[in-house]
């Protein structure tokens, strides 16, 4: 042993080791785990970590995409490619009630997120009986996330009780749960946005091309810039064709295309994207409409209701 030099691990090496340890603990102790896969950059990193954790075995759990039918086309394409590459089963769930009622981001406001995402997630977990779900949330994203445990418990109705969280000491995670409870596990809790980008770059992880700037058809809606990803469908919902302008844009986060604001940019490579991220003066979730509901406690309230 003495002939091996000591090596100081970098922050990314430590974060990677921690995430892999967390993912393995869940598989060893949970009954029926699943990985929530939203196709965004954080999901991409989480999936990559899962593949590392179990190599040469494929990760011993499926991927679950809670779909709103309003995601970017590029996201659907990458989702299917990555699921195939990982050798994991891909489950796609769409809330049937939201589909029947034609819930969309234009006519239904926050109901769109409530039904497609919050209710859809609950329904999917109940349908398949998953008792542990990996999610790609990070503590640096938002105030209430900063206080959430890595193993976060949900009641039978999927609610979060922030005042009654289990103490989490050292790297000893308590995955035992009561009947009906389920666990959300956040293996990349301690990563920052910069860490995610750099890890993607160092590991050459495929991400949705929308993160890079390109000429895209855009329209304005309530003062923000959006991409017209599916023009016929937009026309159908809006009752008119929005005014389309071609612009060089990219996205800092990805969600439903009518809810995800684009930023004008020429950053076409990973280095340029990271550069822009570091020099930018607004936070990452600023492009998302969801956090602005209910004042400062928007996300905390959503989580208590069962949002991931």
């Amino acid at each position, binding site marked *: *042993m003495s002939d*091996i030099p*000591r*090596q*100081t*691990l*970098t*922050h*990314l*090496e*430590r*974060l*990677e*080791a921690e995430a892999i*340890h967390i993912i*393995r*603990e869940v*598989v*060893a102790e949970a009954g029926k785990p699943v990985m929530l896969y939203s196709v965004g950059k954080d999901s991409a990193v989480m999936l990559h970590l899962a*593949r*590392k*954790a*179990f*190599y*040469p*075995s*494929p990760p011993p759990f499926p991927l679950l995409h809670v779909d709103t039918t309003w995601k970017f086309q590029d996201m659907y394409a990458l989702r299917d490619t990555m699921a195939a590459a990982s050798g994991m089963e891909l489950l796609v769930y769409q809330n049937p009630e939201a589909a029947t009622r034609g819930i969309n981001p234009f006519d239904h406001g926050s109901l769109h997120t409530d039904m497609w995402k919050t209710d859809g997630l609950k329904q999917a977990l109940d349908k398949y009986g998953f008792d542990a779900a990996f999610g790609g949330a990070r*503590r*640096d994203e938002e*105030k*209430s*996330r*900063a*206080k959430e445990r890595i193993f976060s418990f949900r009641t039978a109705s999927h609610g979060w009780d922030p*005042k009654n969280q*289990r*103490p*989490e*000491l*050292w*790297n*000893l995670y*308590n995955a*035992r749960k*009561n009947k009906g409870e389920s666990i959300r596990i956040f293996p990349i*809790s*301690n990563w*920052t946005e910069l*860490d995610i980008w*750099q890890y993607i770059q160092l590991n050459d992880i495929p991400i949705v091309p929308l993160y890079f700037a390109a000429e895209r058809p855009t329209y304005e809606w309530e003062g923000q810039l959006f991409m017209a990803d599916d023009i016929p469908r937009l026309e159908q919902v809006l009752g008119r064709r929005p005014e389309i302008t071609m612009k060089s844009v990219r996205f800092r986060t990805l969600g439903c295309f009518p809810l995800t604001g684009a930023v004008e940019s020429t950053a076409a490579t990973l*280095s340029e994207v*990271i*550069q822009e991220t*570091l*020099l930018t*003066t607004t*936070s990452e979730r*600023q492009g998302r409409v969801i956090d602005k509901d209910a004042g*400062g406690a928007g996300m*905390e309230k959503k989580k208590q209701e069962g949002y991931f």
Partner: protein
Amino acid sequence: MEPVYQTDALIAEDIDAYLVSHQHKTMLRFITCGSVDDGKSTLIGRLLYDSKMIFEDQLAALESDSKKVGTQGQEIDFALLVDGLAAEREQGITIDVAYRFFNTEKRKFIVADCPGHEQYTRNMVTGASTADLAVILVDARKGVLVQTRRHSYLCHLIGIRNIVLAVNKMDLVDYDQAVFDGIVADYAAFAKSIGITGFTAMPISGFKGDNITAPSANTPWYSGPSLIEHLESVEVLSAADQAQPLRMPVQWVNRPNLDFRGFSGLIASGRVKPGDAIRVLPSGKTSTVSRIVTFDGDIDQAVAGQSVTLCLADEIDCSRGDVIAAADSPPQAADQFETTLVWLNDEALLVGRSYWLKLGTQMVSATVQEPKYTINVNTMEKMAAKTLDLNAIGVAEIATDKPVVFEPYSEARALGGFILIDKITNATVAAGMINFSLRRSQNIHWQPTDITRADHAALKNQTPRVLWFTGLSGSGKSTIANEVEKQLNLMNRHTFLLDGDNVRHGLNRDLGFTEADRIENIRRVGEVAKLMADAGLIVLTAFISPFRAEREMVRAMLPEGEFVEVFVDTPLEVAEARDVKGLYKKARSGELKNFTGIDSPYEAPVNPEIRVNTVEMTPQEAAELIVRKLLPLK
């Protein structure tokens, strides 16, 4: 604002050069401790602000919030940045640990922002458990307070070796060196008394930014490093761990096909390379490492802090919970320890109750003895105690049902720290640290016998069982158990009936009816029943046994399938109306305390193997039903 700590220039000029430098940064985790008024949140807000971790939109929100609900008048109230939960913002206090992130040119930092009040001791211990360093804040106007002592003691207890005494709000005492020196002298005397061997003191102002990122012109008499400079230069824990012998708790056995068998885990200490001799604990089997497998290809060495998969040269038994260790200096295994416990739950410790104990990847059953003493965290006095309440810290012996591979916490956190989990509520109820193993457990070995329990059972031509009758007083347990034994006797079966009242005349005559005594009563009966089952008998026990946890404890002592829980299900009104021994009457009048069903709870079985309803059945019918369910007896 003061000079801003950031690397903007390089980001804009040469992003690739910046990324290379960032890629090689190390990481330091630290906690900040202090009470609300010490300016802890302000300091963290300042660190985030100075390292440009606050964006414009957040700053705008902060400015407007500061004016509305801030405590700093028209100035920015950084505390609002870090109090994340609605209840915290409303009450202006920190309830839970919050984790914050920032970078400097040299390091990435994770800060655990911990609440200071005594009722949040558990949250502080949580934050401290993963920290390399602690920043202890003192208000320059107030000096070393009771909570300063408490926080320092907790940090020391959890094993944090790097302690920074940050004397804050120096701006409010005119940057007076005498004030600073006085506080440092006070603290040094206290630190020495609790065994803290060294600390770094610095005068700062989180609010004004003095000595945070750079030496302040306001304190020319101070020649030490700024807070950031110090945080950037401290040695991180994982580097020190690499100097220790190899330890890797096995998390998961990787077996994709018949040709591959690897053992996955996070290396807790030491270094490893292919060809190294290893020993698997607790079995003690040896082998050598053949490969270190990762997704990015095999690697030729791995060190503490990395998650890897090891392949061994020999096919030896190794599974989750085992520890792969350096062959020439393996850790020990033991089943009795002296430990220091921090109680984290509203429900107090129940002496004798069986809890889950998780240490590394090992999960065993454990019982805690009466504490030797508890420690008053404000005065450091040792006090006698019967139990541990929420936030109590005490020293107590623990016994486990299986040997645990361990090291004293002071030598290795990973194999010395553990949590206790309530078996019924599944809550994490305590954090523990192993001080040492008790010699008696190492010197008492299992003596192998030639006649096995299978031989005993075969001679009696039956499968041993423990029929555990549980139910309220007066439910009919003894009557039905007696009837079952008669029927089994007629079938030429070898049985023995242990009755609650009878056992209390002899074996358990020293026990009363407190919760702790009831648990010990059941533990002893369980052990006796187990010995009788080992001898091949069908054992019948008739005890109220009100707590689920103890019934489950006895179940865990026996081989799968031998414990048969028989729930004699009689409603309280019916049992009380019968009142065969007149006990309910005494309990109702207050003459008899701790009586199950009256002023002490009965936890009914959730999934008993057999349930009998004594309202609809006679004792004979109930007994016949039980015997029928037991068939075949061999």
